[in-house]
């Protein structure tokens, strides 16, 4: 009894106990395994006994033969969406070929249940246009549209026979349910979405919705809203769920449709630790387009309309998507898309680990987390890893300087003085003149970028220190401190804190360089790197003095002029986007800021892509050059898209994210090499 072995025995018992607990725990996930088994068995059987419709993927043959799935013609709508050259991407952007079925696309993500690449790849907007443009808007989930009454009345025709991924029909009831039972329900939608208000204006009148028959509905506005069709395309990455959601499924969670009201949701309320907040239960089951990576959009939960749908995975952190047998797109030969059967994305810890994964060949496709600065590494390791990089256009401008003209950190006694200085247009012009863009384009972007001619103009994007100094002297910053830095008229040193979140690999060196350039014109600039979340909080609290971030500016056809206001002055943006009664009069913006909003509303009124529209867009650029709401560093930046050497139908021109959007037409030349 008094031996050390007794202690050893106790310790061993303790460990054994924990081990037993460990073995007992994983009962949940294991129970889901049979579904996976069934699938892999199906593949084996197909190989043993080939046969099936050549227009559908062989992985579906057994499910069709067994009667689990109806034959292909009964799964497709009467008029499927036909993909061929120049349809998803403009002619000339890709050498389009009809592809092979099969293979698995592997990729990586670093935020739980959020992979922007698979999201954009699966997202299906209601309407679409080639290459994510504004020209040639046509049906997508909806079949087509008619516009009348001076762009106030829109009639939409749906695809007869189009099915959700569980095989149920998509009808106008699915649209009515969204318009009336979701947007019309205060608990679910406290304020009516701006997109469905006249001219996309937060103060505009909401649409009126009318269901005409099972496959037709009509939307009316009280004033011309020529941009409404654009508002239903990929603009701001919206999708089918803006107006079409699986009503039959969602009615199970909507109190208005439940026999016993709230009580029918009691189990789920209990599970979520809620008492009567049925709207949270509804949301937890409501799979909208940007949730496609989540469990609530999984097979067995909400049906979707996307090319692939998430399924159970063997490992936590793994996102696995399998083809949707009811997907509504076919190629010109009649083959049902997508060509690739499966997508698998692995969760890693951060953006650097994503790049490590790329280098070790774990990604067949990757856009969001790549960087120009990593190209030498991609080139070195690509042949061994079986991938290459394709340079494409970035849909955002890679970097721009934001000077917050409403900066107001409570602890800073100089906040008001700072605002007085930076709200002078001369100050922003001087900053722009100080930046050596030639050097930045050469060192940070390897020449794959241009000067910001659209948003800054040739004059202000050419370095001229004398002119910059003169501009600063003219606005009362002519005093200097002991170290030679400029001072406020009151005598205190003018300091500018540039805080950045290093969201992309080029932002950190860009911020450091900007800090140095400002030093050249006597501005004491301090550069600091923050955690992206903290950066976001400081921005939301209006505590950032200045930063370097990317910009969705005018170069992107779909963009908003007023989007730049949140970079010019965060409080102005909050003021302008809040409801009238919530506006803080201290932050009423100057006229030039309000002009941007007026410009947008006018642009939304015009027909997207038309002459009037383009004139407003150009006016927006001129407004940008005149007011410099943000100081764009470069425009037309390229972006390396990582693709497997085995992958075809890869774009060689256009936006990288447009290729993302056309993922259903990617295929493997030899699918068996990428299983």
């Amino acid at each position: 009894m008094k031996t050390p072995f007794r202690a050893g025995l106790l310790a061993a018992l303790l460990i054994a106990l924990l081990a037993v607990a460990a073995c007992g725990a994983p009962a949940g996930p294991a129970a889901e395994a049979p579904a996976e088994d069934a699938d892999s068995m199906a593949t084996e059987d197909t190989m043993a006994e080939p046969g099936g419709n050549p227009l559908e993927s062989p992985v579906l043959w057994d499910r069709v033969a067994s009667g689990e799935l109806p034959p292909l013609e009964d799964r497709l709508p009467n008029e499927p969406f036909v993909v061929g050259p120049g349809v998803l991407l403009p002619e000339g952007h890709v050498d389009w070929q009809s592809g092979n079925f099969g293979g698995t696309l592997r990729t990586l993500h670093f935020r739980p249940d959020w992979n922007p690449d698979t999201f954009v790849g699966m997202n299906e907007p209601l309407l679409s246009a080639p290459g994510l443009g504004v020209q040639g808007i046509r049906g997508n989930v909806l079949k087509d549209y008619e516009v009348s009454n001076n762009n106030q009345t829109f009639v939409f025709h749906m695809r007869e026979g189009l099915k959700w991924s569980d095989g149920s029909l998509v009808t106008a009831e699915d649209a009515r349910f969204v318009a009336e039972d979701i947007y019309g329900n205060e608990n679910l939608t406290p304020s009516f979405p701006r997109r469905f208000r006249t001219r996309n204006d937060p103060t505009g009148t909401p649409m009126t919705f009318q269901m005409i028959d099972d496959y037709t509905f009509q939307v009316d506005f009280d004033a011309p809203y020529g941009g409404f069709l654009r508002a239903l395309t990929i603009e701001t990455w919206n999708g089918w769920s803006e107006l079409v959601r699986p009503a039959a499924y969602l009615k199970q969670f909507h109190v208005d449709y439940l026999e016993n009201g709230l009580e029918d949701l009691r189990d789920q309320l209990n599970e979520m630790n809620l008492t009567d907040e049925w709207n949270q239960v509804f949301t937890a089951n409501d799979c909208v387009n940007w949730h496609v990576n989540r469990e609530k959009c999984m097979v067995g939960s909400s049906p979707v309309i996307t090319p692939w749908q998430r399924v159970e995975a063997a490992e936590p952190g793994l996102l696995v998507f399998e083809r949707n047998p009811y997907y509504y797109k076919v190629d010109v030969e009649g083959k049902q898309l997508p060509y690739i059967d499966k997508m698998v994305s692995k969760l890693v810890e951060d953006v650097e680990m994503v790049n490590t994964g790329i280098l070790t060949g774990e990604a067949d496709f990757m856009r969001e987390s790549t960087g120009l600065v990593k190209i030498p590494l991609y080139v070195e390791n690509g042949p061994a890893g079986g991938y290459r990089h394709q340079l494409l256009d970035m849909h955002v401008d890679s970097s721009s300087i934001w000077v917050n003209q409403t900066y107001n950190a409570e602890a800073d006694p100089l906040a008001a003085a700072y605002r007085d200085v930076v709200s002078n247009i001369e100050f922003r012009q001087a900053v722009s003149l100080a930046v050596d863009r030639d050097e930045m384009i050469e060192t940070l972007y390897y020449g794959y970028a241009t000067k910001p001619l659209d948003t800054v103009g040739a004059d202000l994007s050419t370095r001229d220190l004398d002119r910059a100094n003169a501009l600063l002297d003219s606005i009362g910053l002519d005093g200097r401190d002991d170290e030679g830095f400029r001072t406020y008229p009151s005598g205190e040193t003018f300091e500018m804190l540039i805080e950045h979140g290093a969201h992309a690999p080029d932002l950190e060196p860009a911020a450091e360089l900007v800090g140095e350039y400002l030093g050249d014109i006597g501005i004491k600039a301090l550069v600091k790197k923050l955690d992206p979340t903290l950066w976001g909080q400081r921005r939301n609290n209006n505590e950032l003095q200045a930063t370097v971030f990317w910009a969705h500016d005018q170069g992107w056809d779909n963009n908003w002029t007023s989007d730049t206001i949140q970079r010019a002055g965060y409080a102005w943006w909050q003021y302008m986007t809040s409801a009238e009664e919530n506006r803080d009069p201290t932050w009423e913006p100057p006229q030039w800021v309000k002009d941007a909003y007026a410009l947008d509303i006018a642009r939304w009124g015009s027909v997207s892509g038309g002459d009037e529209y383009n004139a407003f867009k150009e006016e927006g650029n001129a407004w940008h050059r005149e007011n410099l709401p943000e100081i764009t560093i470069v425009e037309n930046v390229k972006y390396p898209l990582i693709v497997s050497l085995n992958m075809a139908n890869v774009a060689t021109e256009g936006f990288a994210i447009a290729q993302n959007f056309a993922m259903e037409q990617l295929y493997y030349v030899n699918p068996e090499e990428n299983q």
Partner: protein
Amino acid sequence: MVAYIVRRSVMLIPILVLISLVSFAIIELPPGDWVTYQIENLRASGIELNEDEAERLVKMYGFDQPAWKRYIRWMRGILFKFNFGWSFQWGKTVNELLGERLPLTLVISISALIVSWIIAIPIGIYSATHQYSVLDYIFTFFGFLGLTIPTFLLAMVLAWYIFKLTEFAPLGLFSIEYMDEPMSMEKFIDMLKHLVLPLIIIGLNGTGALIRVMRGNLLDELKKQYVITARAKGVNEMQLLFKYPVRMSMNPVISTIGWILPGIFSGEVLVSLVLGLQTTGPLLLRAVLAQDMFLAGSIVMILSVLTVIGTLLSDILLAALDPRIRYSAAAAR
């Protein structure tokens, strides 16, 4: 002894209530909430949410309710239903998430712990009994290396070298081709291959320190008079060593069980991050960063509870092991 355990257990209750309050408060401290984090994520990916949409999300997830209401709701779930609440980030219950990750975490932590003890205790004993011998110097050298090299750095460097030399990337638990397959013999072997590196790194992490502790304590004991007396009386050298001085020098090792228990539960955060292992460590880190409050709060609370229980366990073990502690407790009563 029984009374002692009961008394200690009753004292746990107020401590646990306090812990739950503090962990909730800490999570509430930073400005913003999960919704703001989520909006930031979407923005960083180029999806702009309007202010009204943000407001809708805030209401939807109940962030417009006061903190105390959310706290009470959370505690009620834990106490009455053993439901740790909902993770906003992952869209499922905390129980489910922990259920997915605990098995792997426990396997890695416990195996690493055993590896570390198996290596460190014999080496510590050898070093102490053969002080200043060549092997002692070698062990001391490596012990200090193990003590000073940060594990995450070692993990990164080793992983890269293994990849460069063998084209095998020891990241994650499975190679990509097995990741979404059901468990099979090949998959199991693949997993074992991936487990070697984390086990060595996490195991060696504790080893260096444990060797030093073991060696130091045993050296102290070996010089004591009872050892000399026993030796003078002709007790067999091995029996003498293991029956008394080794036992005494194990005391500090046993008292660390209080820390080992939560350590086993949380996994090695940094190593897991670098090697991409889906353990509870990275889960906690993400939850805190994303202000996924019920998930973060639950993990912090479970860790604290385990620390408290671990301390209790180590006290009991010590009492069982060391008669001096047992008798002094009895005397005090």
